[in-house]
């Protein structure tokens, strides 16, 4: 084969199937990556096309479309020119120390540019297209970009296949990924902008209307206090409906020196809204008033016979300016008040003329402010309690999750058998004892806490002691027993362990996996068989292990415990406190207790991990030193581990308290009590000023705690 033919072959293969050429040249992983990326990008392009089809055709002027395309082209050109310039500059520079780093820097710059470009691009297109909604056109643009990227990636892949083949032939390192990374980054960002719906013009447009609400939130302090309202008020009585022969209440007489209002007539018909929602006016009232402050507004309010006051709309002016002599005149149709048919006697309404006066500051906190302060205290307490309880639980767990303490723990296979046996026996004995004791103190209904604590302590304690005693006993006995006896213990014990693990797995498979599609009766029939099968398979697997390990192979039991603990901690930690909050609310109902449960669960996992990492980072020297004095494990922890980690533990706990208080302010959003509960309530009731108070209190409290905990932590570590 002529020189270079292999390279062209690779390029040709990649032209047909992206990545195939690379794979053929020996770079299998590279080929797979490229193929996967091209498939994903093609999929996203199809997705974009589908999105585009959802929007109706738009008719835009050719000029606007051309302008939009030109703008995008200009932006793209800037990007290309920039990239070329940077490449030229890099080429001129003396070779940098680390070519990979230089490449990454370059990719970073291009990526930044691409980000700006992809953010600004669609926005500018919309701006060019008269600011109307132009979804289809926008998607057309995105689709074009995606297709172009796909084509570029394909082309890059063909070139890359050739380069890889050449590099392999010359036994040189494979070429870089710069182009690939840039293309993929570009595609992701362009698509990301569309999916997230980043829309700058909207943000700017809407801001004007939001300004007032934002103002309430930004400076809500008027709502923190109570004010006494001094207002001028006059009231007139009106009877409606007006039965024949009645003339209504007597007409008011103006009085000197106080506000007055006179309404004529005092008896009339209500307005009525017909079935089509059209208003038919009732009697027109003539309103005269006086004794008010000149130049200010009088508001007209209507109060129906059962005492509900409202401002009548569309029936006449409701805000009238008072003349220089303190009087005013106006007209109003009697509003469309629904009087139930069973109402008896004359229906007397009230018309109020109200002139709000100056508000007087009382210095008293408003009801809402008091509520917010209480809720804030509740939040801080939720955070504090969750931290303290979380610490207590995280402490023992962290030791189990510390690599440097656990990995040295090993036992003989016989020790493991004894340990598992002891664990089961101890737990069973503990359970039996606890059940007796629980009955004695009155059972779960009468003494739930006592019973729970008794069960927890006895079962866990029994399991631990059983594990310890039996694993030691068998470990020690193994040294004196003949080989065949040890082998017997090993095989029998391992088979039992395997069966014990396999049984629930079989059951789980029956109910969990088959149960999805099968009828419950069928599952119930199949379950025992599958459980036996699981147990059998488990026993076989463990028998093989027992055979492979032999009598002498130490079992890395510490590693097993470490892995199990870490896995549980990581899973629990990866679920956000807000979601645990939902669990808490389902469990114990709305309120701070639910929030406490949520934060505690998350804190145990988070602190467990932080603590265990603190333990892992301690100096190993003192541990060796303490061990070599003949100290046992407990003493080593007390003298070599704890003194080293306590400052870190304290610092982490303070930090966690800080986070917990912050989290407890939002845990209320899902019903977990504290100030978040009030906040979401006020936002939903459109009471933005009060919501603003809550936000301010949160900000003040959290930043204060932040500062305090940071300064304490600085002193500790």
């Amino acid at each position, binding site marked *: 084969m002529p020189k270079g033919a292999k390279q062209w072959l690779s390029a040709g293969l990649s032209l047909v199937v992206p990545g195939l050429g690379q794979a053929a040249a020996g770079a299998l992983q590279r080929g797979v990556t490229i193929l996967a990326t091209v498939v994903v990008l093609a999929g996203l392009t199809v997705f974009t096309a589908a999105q585009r089809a959802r929007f109706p055709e738009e008719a835009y002027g050719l000029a606007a479309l051309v302008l939009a395309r030109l703008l995008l082209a200009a932006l793209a050109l800037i990007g290309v020119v920039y990239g070329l310039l940077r490449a030229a500059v890099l080429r001129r520079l003396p070779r940098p120390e680390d070519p990979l780093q230089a490449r990454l820097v370059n990719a970073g710059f291009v990526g930044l540019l691409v980000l700006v470009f992809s953010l600004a691009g669609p926005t500018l297109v919309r701006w060019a297209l008269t600011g109307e909604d132009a979804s289809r056109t926008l998607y057309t643009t995105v689709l074009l970009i995606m297709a172009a990227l796909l084509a570029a990636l394909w082309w890059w892949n063909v070139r890359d296949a050739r380069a890889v083949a050449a590099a392999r032939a010359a036994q040189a390192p494979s070429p870089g990924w710069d182009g690939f990374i840039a293309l993929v980054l570009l595609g992701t960002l362009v698509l990301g902008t569309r999916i997230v719906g980043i829309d700058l013009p909207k943000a700017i447009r809407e801001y004007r209307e939001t300004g007032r609400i934002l103002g309430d939130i930004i400076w809500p302090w008027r709502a923190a206090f109570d004010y006494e309202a001094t207002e001028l008020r006059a009231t007139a009585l009106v009877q409606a409906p007006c039965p024949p022969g009645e003339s209504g209440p007597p007409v008011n007489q103006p009085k000197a020196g106080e506000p007055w209002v006179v309404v004529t007539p005092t008896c009339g018909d209500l307005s009525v809204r017909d079935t089509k929602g059209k208003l038919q006016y009732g009697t027109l009232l003539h309103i005269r008033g006086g004794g008010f402050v000149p130049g200010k507004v009088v508001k007209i309010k209507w109060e129906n016979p059962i005492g509900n006051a409202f401002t009548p709309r569309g029936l006449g002016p409701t805000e009238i300016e008072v003349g220089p002599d303190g009087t005013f005149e106006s007209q109003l149709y009697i509003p469309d008040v629904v009087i139930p048919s069973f109402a008896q006697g004359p229906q007397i309404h009230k018309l109020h003329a109200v002139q709000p006066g100056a508000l007087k500051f009382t210095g008293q906190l408003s009801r809402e402010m008091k509520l917010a302060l209480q809720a804030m205290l509740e939040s801080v307490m939720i955070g504090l309690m969750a931290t303290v309880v979380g610490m207590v639980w995280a402490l023992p767990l962290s030791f189990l999750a510390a690599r440097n303490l656990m990995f040295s723990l090993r036992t003989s296979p016989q020790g493991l058998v004894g340990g598992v046996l002891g664990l089961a026996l101890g737990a069973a004995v503990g359970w039996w004892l606890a059940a007796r004791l629980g009955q004695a103190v009155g059972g779960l209904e009468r003494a739930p806490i006592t019973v729970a604590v008794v069960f927890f302590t006895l079962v866990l304690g029994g399991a631990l002691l059983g594990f310890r005693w039996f694993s*030691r006993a068998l*470990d*020690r006995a193994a*040294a004196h027993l003949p080989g065949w006896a040890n082998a017997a213990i090993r095989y029998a014990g391992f088979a039992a362990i395997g069966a014990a693990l396999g049984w629930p797995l079989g059951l789980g498979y029956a109910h969990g996996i088959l149960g999805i599609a099968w009828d419950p009766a069928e599952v119930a029939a199949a379950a025992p068989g599958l459980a036996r099968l699981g147990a059998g398979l488990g026993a076989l697997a463990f028998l093989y292990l027992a055979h492979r390990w032999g009598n002498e192979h130490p079992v890395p039991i510490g590693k097993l415990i470490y892995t199990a603990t870490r896995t549980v901690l990581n899973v629990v930690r990866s679920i956000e406190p807000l979601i645990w909050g939902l669990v808490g609310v389902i469990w114990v109902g709305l309120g701070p207790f639910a929030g406490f449960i949520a934060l505690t669960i998350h804190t145990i996992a988070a602190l467990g991990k932080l603590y265990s990492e603190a333990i892992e980072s301690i*100096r190993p*020297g*003192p541990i*060796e*030193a*303490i*061990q*070599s*004095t*003949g*100290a*046992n494990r*407990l*003493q080593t922890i*007390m*003298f*070599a581990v704890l*003194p*080293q980690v*306590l*400052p870190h533990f304290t610092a982490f706990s303070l930090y966690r308290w800080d986070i917990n208080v912050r989290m407890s302010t939002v845990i209320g959003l899902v019903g977990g009590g504290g100030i978040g509960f009030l906040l979401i309530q006020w936002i939903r009731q459109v009471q933005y000023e009060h919501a603003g108070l809550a936000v301010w209190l949160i900000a003040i409290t959290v930043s204060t705690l932040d500062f305090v905990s940071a300064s304490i932590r600085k002193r500790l570590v």
Partner: protein
Amino acid sequence: MLRVEHLTKVYETGTVALKDVSFTVEEGEFLVIIGLSGSGKSTLLRSINRLIEPTEGRIVWNDIDITALDEAGLRRVRRKIGFVFQEFNLVDRLSVLTNVLAGRLGYTNPWWSLLYYFPPEDHRRALEALEQVGLADRAHHRGSELSGGQKQRVGIARALVQNPEMLLADEPVASLDPVLAHSIMGYLERLNQERGITILCSLHYLDLVQRYATRVIGLREGRLVYEGTREDIRHMTDAEFKQIYGEEAQRLGG
């Protein structure tokens, strides 16, 4: 008497740190182990009190097979073997006194240790040991407040309160300046001569070896390549020197 028989240590990474090392140490000897960094000196010393589990071979001390001991037995043996470290390995956040008291942990009921409690008798021993190394006035300072030489003296005091019959010292003076080095080695020599404590000590500097050792063994790449008395060190040939320190090594001063 300590007998090390065919000791081999292979780490999990596959590194062979010791290969078939055998030697004997009589009671009251001051045995110095020499060799380059990484020749297995630390592994050897740590294998003797099983800070490191040997892969093969036996270590027999006063007719007790240390390698076969269970946890409780190991605890009883360890408390009779002091260990002095290159990096001192004090617990910085505990007081000097507590650091020394920690030497009594092997004799203390572990439940007492939950409260950091030691009997008055142990306090007396600890203060006495501190006095012997000249640091009684520092008893209530934190470990971190001491200088390097002082830390090592605390390390020796910690080993002393164990009432040891043997002392393992892993390059005890490598982190100290030459004057301090002689002072620390002086303490070890006194323990060896006045109390008859057997000492196994790894060292870097040959002048220290000639001054303090009663017997010397040399390790190279995990193998025992040299065995001799103090006299033999003085008359060590170039060939022997190169056998321990490698072909490229240069002897300074002669």
